[in-house]
């Protein structure tokens, strides 16, 4: 027979320290400004754009787009020159929404947008009024010679434009005289409008801007998703406790719930402290963790219950210690296997899954810890309290 490790020896200290840490994490989250809600939950827009201009960095983009109050973050290695640009609609704060968000594209902007969509390599040399209010002269330049007047005319067939070359054929410069008098304005509003503006601002300043991906979430959907998220978390906890109560005696359910709540609080607070953008993917990670947390605890408790049924003369404390010890190899092996796969996802699974993997890694560590140091003491205390 192997030696039994006395896991419960320092239970008071470890248990209270851990819960203190939870409280500390939560306070820290609140003090540092709460959660970094992603656009899934508050509405807003997010684009991934790559630039050909080499002078671009996070700072220059932030300055260029200051009206949009964006967060800018580089993706991948520097040579790709690729950035995630996010603008959120503020919901909790009463802060005025960035001024540009409700002013949508003018007719002039529509033309620029069309040009940019067809020719990402375009450079806008100048845009000026040509006498009448709705008559504009645009000077544009292309980096390749594949564009000619006829092609350009065809691409802009929805507009009332006259196109002529400026300078020699080699210059690849064109003058577009655009008459907007008879053009209807497209109705684009809200978030849609904001993102169009942002893209236009980027493409007017830099040539060769490529939009790799684009997400917009309206404020109503954001609210809907946020409410559902809370409902789901609650539902998960309720269903799991119902199952536990059904399959185990009440004392085991209490222990498992105690560690579940510990893990939930700890991992949510972790997202807060790390400033992890809280989106649907993170929610998925958290829900999976709740499952894992209970899973891990059940394996330990199952063994404790089994030893308890043997009706040997040892105390309940010893039974618990024995149970933990006997399942320790499994706890460690499974933890290592899961942590390993998550680390792989973290390092090679791509940008989208990095935060997901990080939250999972932390959560699995906490979940493994709590199934040894949080759930068993709770089980013991409940048992002692009941048998008084």
């Amino acid at each position: 027979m192997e030696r039994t490790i006395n896991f419960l020896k320092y239970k008071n200290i470890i248990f209270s320290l851990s819960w203190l840490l939870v409280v500390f994490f939560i306070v820290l989250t609140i003090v540092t400004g709460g959660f970094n809600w992603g656009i899934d939950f508050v509405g807003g827009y997010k684009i991934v754009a790559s630039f050909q201009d080499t002078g671009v960095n996070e700072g220059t983009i932030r300055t260029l787009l200051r009206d949009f109050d964006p967060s800018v973050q580089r993706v991948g290695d520097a040579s790709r020159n690729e950035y995630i640009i996010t603008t959120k609609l503020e919901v909790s704060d009463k802060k005025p929404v960035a001024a540009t968000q409700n002013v949508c594209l003018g007719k002039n902007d529509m033309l620029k947008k069309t040009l940019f969509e067809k020719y990402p390599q375009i450079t806008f040399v100048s845009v000026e009024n040509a006498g009448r209010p709705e008559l504009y002269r645009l000077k544009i330049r292309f980096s390749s010679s594949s564009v000619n007047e006829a092609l350009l005319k065809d691409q802009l067939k929805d507009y009332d434009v006259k196109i002529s070359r400026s300078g020699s054929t080699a210059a690849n410069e064109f003058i577009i005289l655009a008459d907007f008098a008879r053009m209807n304005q497209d109705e684009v509003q809200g978030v849609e409008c904001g993102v169009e503006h942002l893209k236009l601002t980027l493409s007017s300043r830099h040539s060769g801007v490529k939009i790799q991906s684009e997400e917009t979430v309206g404020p109503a959907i954001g609210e809907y998703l946020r409410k559902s998220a809370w409902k789901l978390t609650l539902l998960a906890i309720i269903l799991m406790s119902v199952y536990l109560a059904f399959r185990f005696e009440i004392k085991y359910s209490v222990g498992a719930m105690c560690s579940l709540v510990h893990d939930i609080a700890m991992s949510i607070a972790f997202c807060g402290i790390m400033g992890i953008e809280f989106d649907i993917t993170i929610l998925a990670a958290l829900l999976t963790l709740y499952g894992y947390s209970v899973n891990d605890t059940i394996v330990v408790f199952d063994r404790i219950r089994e030893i308890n049924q043997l009706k040997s003369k040892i105390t309940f404390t010893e039974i618990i210690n024995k149970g933990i010890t006997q399942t320790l190899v499994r706890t460690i092996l499974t933890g290592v296997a899961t942590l390993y796969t998550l680390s792989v996802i973290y390092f090679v699974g791509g940008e989208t899954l990095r935060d997901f993997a990080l939250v999972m890694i932390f959560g699995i560590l906490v979940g493994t810890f709590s199934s040894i140091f949080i759930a068993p003491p709770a089980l013991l205390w409940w048992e002692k309290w009941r048998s008084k």
Partner: protein
Amino acid sequence: MTRGMLYKTIFIVSLIVIAVLLILPTLGTKQMEIRFVDSATAENIEAIKKKFSGGGYTLTENGMVIIVSGTNITDAIMNELKNFQGVSDVKILKHWVERVFLAKKINLGLDLQGGMYLSLQANFAGIEQKLGRKLTESDKTEITQQALELIRNRIDKFGVSEPSIRPRGNEAIEIQLPGVKDPAGVKKAIGTTGSLEYRLVDDKYSNAASVWFNENFRDEQISDDPLEQKTLLAGISKTIALPDTMELLFYWERDKNTGAIRPAYPIALLREVAVEGTDIKEAVVDRDEMQQIVVSFKTTPEGASKFAKATAPENKGKRLAIVLDEKVRNAPHINETISSGAGNISGGFTYDEAMTLARIIKEGALPVDLKIVEERTVGPSLGQDSIEAGVKAFAIGLLGIFIFALLYYKLGGLIADIGLIMNIIFTLAILSLLGFTITLPGIAGFLLSVAMAVDANVIIYERIKEELRKGKSIRIAIINGFNRAFWTIFDANLTTLLAAFILLQYGTGPIKGFAVTLFVGIMVSMFVALYVTRFVYELISLNKKMNKLSL
């Protein structure tokens, strides 16, 4: 070996064979047929060839048709090719397994193949204002269903194949378009309200068109491209010498499996509009005296006289086509003059068919305008990056676990590894069978479920070791090990299943992919660990001479 064991062997082996067949359409070589227009130039064809040079594709050229074979062939690539100059049609050919079995290939999510996801909502506030009352939940459901019908009617305007359109709850509609080229155009097509009108059918020319169509076009599928459909109709009109007062349109039928509508046959209509969509006030599904399902409608006072004229005795026996956005969706016969401003449309409808028709008619009475409340667009190159990252993570993750199991459990590890491979095959097979979509988080969920599958093996093996240490015989240790581990594994996995199930209810797009793979993966891992692996050990323990178990 006992008879029972023989049956088990046959059962497990056939499961593996079926599973491998089911995943062939997904992982095996796929074929795509690219058809060129007759006027396509050598450069046009060269451009296609260049696109598929490298990447492990093989091309077979046969006149104006190129067949591309390779493993990386997606809907997004197909839709992208449709925009190439000189290309007339692109089709992904069905794998023979897809024809023989009910298997579908696992689709790539938009995050992996690139494309556009939209979530739309009807402008409820606007409708409330128009009706002058608050909308109830069932009103909202009905309006959303009507909008859904309208969107399905417009699929061709999106210019992509394999779009997915479905309601989310009762308030929103989700559209997923793989590889969309012109997002602005799609948004514009969605933003416009539907045009509904009622026009008389000319039977003589309709018959002539049908005859021609049946002779020349019976076995071919009509192209998805609206431009080609128009060319086809113009061609038929010319052949049958259709007068200028008439117009040839397609009659569209709904595909029962996909819910999408497809052009079925041409039909000749008078150009003159008999009744406007707005002339009808309401339409509901009802039953007539014969207890048949009918769509009953009421007209506006103004519409009543138009309807009376359209259904006048001289038109009796003719058909009145219901045309939504230039597509004929139904053409009931006129049985009697309707002058009261109320009538029935009968035609042996099922309830669903009648609902669809009522919704189409309502679109004229109460047009729904839709707004985009959520949009996610992923470019093809980002999608490709994601696939590579996902596959790489999966491969490295799997390899590590394999080695880990081998090192730690030796022969037992080898059996566990075989179990893991079966896990992967079975999971993919189930995903294929259900026609699921795999996303990047889905790949992560898959990998995670493999880690969980290891857990089941660890629990069992540790148990067996313990039994052996207690001095039990190998045979008894194996039996006890599996028996004792059963409930532990069951209880433990059930909670994770619960979490995945909840997520499934909530998730959209990528997250749904995660929940699905996690759910299916865990179910499969329980089956493999508790049934298949157990069987392997039972076989091993038959060997009475064995006195040491390598674990």
